[in-house]
């Protein structure tokens, strides 16, 4: 089995490439940090968990940080496809496709790089959250990483595959935007969906990220076993497996 070896070859190459332009990693963090700083304080005075009382700082960040982690994963991972378009244009993808390297590894090595990058970004985001008043069990914080990683694996795989099919930034960018923004709004990242009307709550059921965020929020509230948690875990694993499989199909295509 050369799969792991091959994946590491691609992973090392991609890590090297991103370290040459580290500004990109910082830039991706900018948006969630801004939300944390400029939007988070607004949530303190809202009744986030039903009721009518303002929820206060700790409650607000327990609600908001899981959402921001998924937002970071959502944006960070769906845009990775841009890089592979320029690599394809440089002829690098075809060059590796003619070597004996596993064609799934060409995808997996890249996804692994993105997962590592996103994990580091998430650590920074959580630390910033703590600095602003997030208080949550350590177990909950650690358990948010598997969710973030599942989302990253799924979305990065699909992003690379779609980008490789389209081969054009001009069609990739609008496509990503028109998918990501509605998904994000329907996931209840900013505000609880149960503040909205029934029809909105209804269509929000199609966004898989909504279930993932709900499960993470349960963890942050100290709840580790209930229906919301089980749904979230299943959806997260499902997203990762289905998307990785779809992405791999594109990468091994034309495998004469």
């Amino acid at each position, binding site marked *: 089995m050369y799969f792991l070896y*091959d994946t590491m070859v691609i992973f090392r*190459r991609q890590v090297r490439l991103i370290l040459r332009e580290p500004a990109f990693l910082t830039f991706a963090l900018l948006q969630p940090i801004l939300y944390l700083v400029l939007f988070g304080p607004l949530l303190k005075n809202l009744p986030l968990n039903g009721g009518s009382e303002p929820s206060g700082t700790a409650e607000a960040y327990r609600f908001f940080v899981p959402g921001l982690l998924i937002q970071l994963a959502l944006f960070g991972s769906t845009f990775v496809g841009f890089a592979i378009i320029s690599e*394809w244009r440089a002829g690098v993808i075809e060059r590796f496709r003619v070597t*004996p390297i596993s064609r799934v590894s060409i995808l997996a090595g890249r996804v692994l790089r993105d997962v590592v990058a996103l994990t580091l970004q998430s650590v920074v985001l959580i630390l910033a959250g703590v600095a602003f008043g997030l208080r949550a069990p350590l177990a909950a914080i650690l358990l948010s990483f598997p969710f973030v990683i599942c989302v990253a694996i799924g979305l990065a795989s699909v992003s690379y595959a779609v980008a490789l099919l389209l081969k054009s930034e001009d069609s990739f960018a609008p496509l990503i935007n028109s998918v990501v923004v509605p998904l994000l709004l329907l996931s209840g990242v900013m505000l609880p969906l149960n503040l909205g009307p029934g029809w909105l709550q209804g269509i929000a059921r199609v966004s898989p990220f909504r279930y993932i965020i709900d499960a993470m929020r349960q963890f942050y509230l100290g709840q580790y076993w209930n229906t919301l948690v089980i749904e979230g875990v299943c959806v997260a694993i499902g997203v990762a497996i289905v998307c990785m499989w779809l992405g791999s199909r594109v990468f091994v295509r034309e495998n004469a």
Partner: protein
Amino acid sequence: MSIIEARGLARTFKSRKRTVHAVRGVDLTVEDGEIVGFLGPNGAGKTTTLRMLTTLLRPTAGTAVVAGADLLRDPLGVRKRIGFVPQAIGQTQGGTDDQCLVIEELMDQGAAYRIPKAETARRASALIKQLDLGGLDQRLVKTLSGGQRRRLEVAVGLVHQPPLVFLDEPTTGLDPQSRSNMWEHITRLRSDLGTTVVLTTHYLEEADALCDRVFIIDNGVTVAVGTPDELKRRISGDVVTLRVNGAIERARGLLTAQPIVQQVTVADEELRLTVERGEEALPALLRVLDGAGITMRAISVARPTLDDVFLTLTGRSLRDDSPSGDGGDGGDDGSGETELAGAGAGAGSKE
């Protein structure tokens, strides 16, 4: 035993309602140690043929054995034994990344073939020397000149010491000096390492100077195969090129009627005649045109070139073809082979 043996290799692209026959059935046999060139205009099917032989594109028909492995049943076996240098024009570039160091590109390539690090390092330094890249190993690829970058791309294709290497348009876009320098390197590949080289080109000089045998490809089929000399010998006689003031069709008719004239073609407002002993035939031809009141602007006599071979076989000149090949100029029939290849890799095909 031939290193490439292909029969009826064909590739059809289906895009929307149109079916494009990029390659209609190519037969080819390449012997160990040969330098072979696919010569043809953009859109002829050269690159598509190369992409099929390098496992990048699955043929829709035909069979091939490449470097001892069956192309359809054992593509991985083919990949292990061949080197490939992508074309560096049109939509895609030659396979190196701007942000990599020269040495990294070579080391990564070795890793992709699972060659131990120390061994790759040894081969990389030999290749750097062999391809005149000395002192550049710690440079970013984007800082290399066009010729240096192309030589690096060739070096990358050779790290695993393949017995057979495919070079797609190895010199397109290079200045004349870098081009003849590249020719030397390719020639040395064979003389020093015994490597078999298959390349595509639309430069006649390149096919003529470099290749033992030339496959002239047009419209998805091989129209002629042979050594450059054999191909030129097919055109007996010299080529007389005439430019007349107007009346080009009348001139054509008159000249065709002359028994000494073997063939007349018109391309680019020029009449090209194939004539035995051109210099001696010239006065007679001039008299004919003069007698009909047709005046001439220019005249030349030349030994046949591969372009004349191409013109005789296909009725078109290779020189009309622009080397840029980035679509746009495709017209109705060709639309550029890079574009076709792209369509195949894109939404069109379902495997």
